[in-house]
């Protein structure tokens, strides 16, 4: 734990606030009716591109695929001038070294999942070794999963200690904690898990692994953003947010940005504090950008495959 966090009073997680589900749904529905057009849309979409963690987390990943994705991360679409790069690429620990080499000294970061992703069903020593390995290979960021089974059976201290232990193993790498909200069942649990993660030392909280449906719904993201806001008000520490999985259209991504701006304010509208975990979002945003540049609806045939 950092010195700053040592002074923080850790609350009793049995008493975290409960969530008004109907209220959350209404708030989100209202945000979704908003329409962003013209200049703001273009600016927003460029921001979205710059916040993407381009992700490949499959058993069939090969060095070739990872290298190709790293190339894409730096050169999203040559036909579009001044196209930003994505924020990071997200890979398995075994691919970190390859990604790091492929990215060279570009400012695209390498994030690695760890702690027996995606299930998290492994002993703590294994998870720590997994994390240390990824960091040694050069990962700038670690995406860990929490033990949902332990969380659901009420062993909050176990979950807390585990996150703290992984944070220690991360060293200088920033830690994103994946709550896997699709398995947490209720919004109350999402709020509780968010608080545990933040107090235990997370730099980012992240919705999902992308392996479970539903993944990053607007409702879940909203609850987590509110948890970040309350934590910031109490402690003055900024925590990042990363919705991942299921955000594949630029419209949905823009609505997410809007929600961040209205809950947390403009300080969070930066890829240091907000990310999208996505693989197919980039192409949709690029197609929209090209549409606004040329006035013509685009075809996937003219964009890279992954």
């Amino acid at each position, binding site marked *: 734990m950092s010195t700053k966090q040592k002074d923080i009073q850790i609350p009793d997680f049995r008493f975290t606030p409960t969530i008004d589900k109907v209220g959350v749904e209404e708030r989100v529905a209202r945000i979704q009716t908003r329409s962003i057009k013209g200049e703001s849309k273009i600016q927003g979409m460029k921001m979205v591109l710059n916040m993407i963690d381009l992700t490949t987390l499959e058993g069939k990943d090969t060095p070739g695929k990872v290298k190709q994705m790293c190339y894409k991360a730096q050169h999203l679409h040559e036909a579009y001038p001044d196209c930003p790069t994505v924020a990071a690429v997200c890979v398995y620990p075994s691919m970190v070294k390859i990604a790091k080499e492929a990215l060279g000294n570009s400012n695209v970061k390498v994030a690695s999942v760890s702690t027996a992703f995606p299930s998290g069903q492994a002993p703590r020593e294994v998870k720590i070794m997994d994390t240390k390995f990824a960091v040694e290979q050069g990962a700038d960021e670690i995406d860990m999963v929490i033990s949902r089974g332990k969380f659901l059976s009420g062993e909050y201290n176990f979950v807390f200690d585990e996150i703290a232990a992984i944070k220690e193993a991360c060293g200088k790498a920033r830690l994103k904690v994946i709550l896997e909200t699709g398995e947490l069942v209720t919004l109350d649990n999402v709020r509780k898990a968010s608080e545990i993660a933040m107090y235990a030392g997370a730099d980012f909280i992240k919705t999902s692994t992308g392996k479970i449906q539903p993944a990053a719904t607007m409702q879940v993201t909203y609850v987590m953003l509110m948890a970040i806001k309350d934590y910031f008000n109490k402690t003055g520490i900024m925590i990042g947010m990363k919705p991942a999985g299921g955000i594949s259209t630029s419209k949905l991504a823009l609505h997410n940005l809007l929600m961040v701006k209205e809950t947390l304010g403009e300080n969070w509208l930066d890829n240091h504090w907000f990310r999208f975990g996505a693989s197919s979002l980039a192409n949709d945003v690029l197609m929209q950008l090209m549409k606004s540049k040329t006035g013509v*609806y685009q075809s996937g045939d003219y964009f890279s495959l992954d």
Partner: protein
Amino acid sequence: MTRLSVLKTYKIYIGGQFPRTESGRYYSPLDAAGKPLANVCLSSRKDLRNAVVAARKAFGGWSERAAFNRGQILYRIAEMLEGRRSQFVEELMLQGSSEKAANQEVDLSIDRLVYYSGWTDKYQQIFSAVNPVASSHFNFSVLEPMGVVGVVAPQNSSLIGLVSTIIPIVAGGNTVVVLASEKLPLCAVTFAEVLQTSDVPGGIINILTGTEKELIEQFGSHMDINAVLYAGDTAENYKTLQVLAADSVKRIVKFKLNPSDETAENPYLIQDFQEVKTTWHPIENIGGSSSNY
């Protein structure tokens, strides 16, 4: 107490569903006596875009389906159309046909569906070829569907014009986004209801209603439409299509036939929207100098 009859909402058909137009607009085509027939969706370019997305998504599955199965599905459309013939006859009469002409048009539409359902697994044999070449290769050309095809249906026909233009394209494994006749749109929407109940997967045929004037540029310029069949009668719109198609190297075909005529059913209409793929396959040719294919 008198009962108010419940009028049908004529909606568009995209991806197997019946949304209202995204724009919220409608128009009212008139019958022969100048009375409004119904309120029909006035589709916007965003509806066209959504339809193309649905058609693109459906293309993979439809083009890879066994040709015979595509025929079975087209035949099923004919069966369902037969079952709802009275509704079509009624709508055709509302739009100005005589009872006799309306019955003939429905008969012809059903027969045409059956005709093309027979062709789905036969046109390949007719149009493919094994080509003689002067080297040790087995060289053959086969047809492949083009992808998403836009169709501007004939203005002066409500049902047979629609069926005659879209069915050969679909029979060949393409998916279709069609703009129905502006003046006579009723049967197109009812035809969508037939499609939805006849095993046609969503997105294969997408039907929009609205004006040529508003959508023609989008049909021409959309990068994800691979070809357009123009069956309208405005020379200017046809020219616009040809000019705008240049960017995406789209194939533009004009439908010149009278859909009610028997010449409007032939396998060349399937061939119009096929690409020819030629393959050179090396073969062993010991001691010989020529290739026997």
